[in-house]
């Protein structure tokens, strides 16, 4: 079961990789006065915060929604989750400078576990 989920994720990770490069090219066109290093950092940050957690959060609905839709919805979903829970983590005393390293992995793990469990229960 895990293998199935991992294989399909592996397949789609190629698309995500391509979209990262495409995103970087788009950024370079739009913000052409900016150095590539800065753009790379921003693109990587956006992917780490929104795209990758969003992708895993949407894995549960993989069979119902096509990749492009999951990709876009995932960005909004991850932004929503990170925005909300960062507020609460801050309130309980965890400095926000650590949130970028805590919240995305948590969303990724929850998304992955949910997808694996769904696959297990459906087969």
């Amino acid at each position, binding site marked *: 079961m895990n293998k199935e989920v991992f294989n399909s994720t592996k397949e789609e990770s190629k698309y995500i990789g391509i*979209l990262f490069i*495409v995103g970087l090219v*788009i*950024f370079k*066109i*739009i*913000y*052409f*006065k*900016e150095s590539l290093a*800065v*753009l790379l*950092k*921003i693109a*990587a*940050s*956006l992917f*780490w*915060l929104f795209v990758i957690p969003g992708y895993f959060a949407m894995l*549960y*609905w993989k069979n*119902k*929604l096509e990749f*492009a*839709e999951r990709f*876009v*919805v995932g*960005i*909004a*979903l991850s*932004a*929503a*989750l*990170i*925005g*909300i829970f*960062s*507020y*609460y983590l*801050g*309130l309980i*005393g*965890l*400095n*926000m*400078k650590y*949130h*970028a390293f805590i*919240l995305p992995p948590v969303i990724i793990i929850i998304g992955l576990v949910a997808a694996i469990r769904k696959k297990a229960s459906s087969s």
Partner: protein
Amino acid sequence: MLFTQENQNQVVKIKLDFEKIFLIIFFGLFLYLESGFLFDNRLQHDYPYAYLASDAFQHQTRAESIKDAGNYKNEASYIVFGFNGAIGYYPPVLYDLSVILSDLAGLEIYDTVYFLVFFFAAIGTLMMYFVIRQFNRNVAIIAIPISLLVFSNGLYTGFTWGHWPAIVSQAFLVCIFWCTSKIDLEKSYLFLAVFMSASFMTHTSEVLFAAIYLIIFFIAYSIIFRKIDLKLIKNFVIGGIICLIILFYYLVIFKYVWLPRQAYEFAVQKMWDNPTMYLSDFKIFFLLMIAGIAIALFYIKKSFVPAVMALSMLIIGSGNYFGFREKAFQLRFFWPVLLCFFIGFAIYWLLKLIIKEWKPVYSFILSIIIILAILVNSVPFVPHYNPIKTNGIMDPYHWEMFRWIEKNTAKESNVYFFYGDIYSQDAVLRSAKRTHSQVIPEDYVDALSKREIRRFYDTESPGDHGGGVPYRTSFFSFGSRLEEAPPGFLHGKRDICNYDYYVFDKISGQPVLAQYNLLIASELQKNGSATVVFENPTAVIMKNNKKGEDCIEQRSF
């Protein structure tokens, strides 16, 4: 390529890829038009760039204060008139995201918070594409370029003047519409709960709009499809309960801080003091919109979600005529996105009367034509994209001055700003990150016209008074520092000798005011009351050496 059984998959794949390529190009174009010119084609700036009004600084400085504190338990004292211990009361999501992105990407907050508004506007537009696509892909392709009108005349100010939380919340509002288009999806209530919560915690009024939409959606669904859908009710109820759980803590703050101060009261407001959009501004698209409404209603069973969504947003966006006041006007910042369905549907349906066999390529061609019509200013009867290219209110020298104060003065020190052209947008002053006051220009001009140097000037203590500077007395009760403050706390005659630092602008659009600034500065310096501690071509900062004493001789000149 000829379509055969053998190459069927390949043909379908090419068609799908073409759509994705279109979406990627559109996303890039949207981002380019909204932020490319405006940001001078860079993402990293030396100072808050292209900020055109006070509200933009309000959000930037609040996000900055959250980054400094590492959380949003409290408002920074310099935001709330120097009071300590005020709870963080503003919806936090946009700030949190900009702080996290700033930490990760190493960009300044003033860059990340602004960029994210544009980024989520683009994501909201793509979400709208999927809402419409659920009904008809061709309509979605034709409709989506209309969303570029969010950068037409009045609406662009939603971005540049700082209505940022409203815009980001509207992007989440589109996500809520998407949820209703996927109500059959397993556990779709999770989407509803998360997006409702995010919208509420970004800018609360959009959740009221979402609730109205969901009620209209449910009633219309029940009438049109002649059934009470239990799954729909279950989704709404479970989604609502999860949403309430997520929001509980902030909801308490909202209920006791915001609601008493911004309670609903019926008022008809025909105009707004900010630039906005009226239906007539859609020009020829308005006629198509009317046609689109009629056609959508005729095909309501098929076009149910986008039709009900767009109609609801049209009604709510016109809510200034029946009590929603400025909140209705704010919704209009996203009207081109929210209403594009009607226009796209009308164009598609009308052309389908002529073209019986519609090919997807026609939709792409139409889409390109609409984009060009919006971009090329000489095309008549069409609203146009208006690029903005400006540094904004801030400049490198003022920013250097603000940074100097932040880095070189004691945290508890207070700063007095004499006249400066940019200080009328008073949230700019929070950039100093110190408690601050500023001279009221009318009194300053009065003193100048009477050729007087005064020790007492009419003075304003600017700050964020929207929440009344709330502090907690228990979990469910709050006090208000502002309401408890003595009369005249915000405005009144103040003794300039009671401040630690003075800021004088050396340059002004009205040179005589800058000269008067420098006259007072030299007067303070002459008797040793104050010494210059920072100077650049635009501003001088002086430290008061005789705080509380007789620091300046009142006289005529």
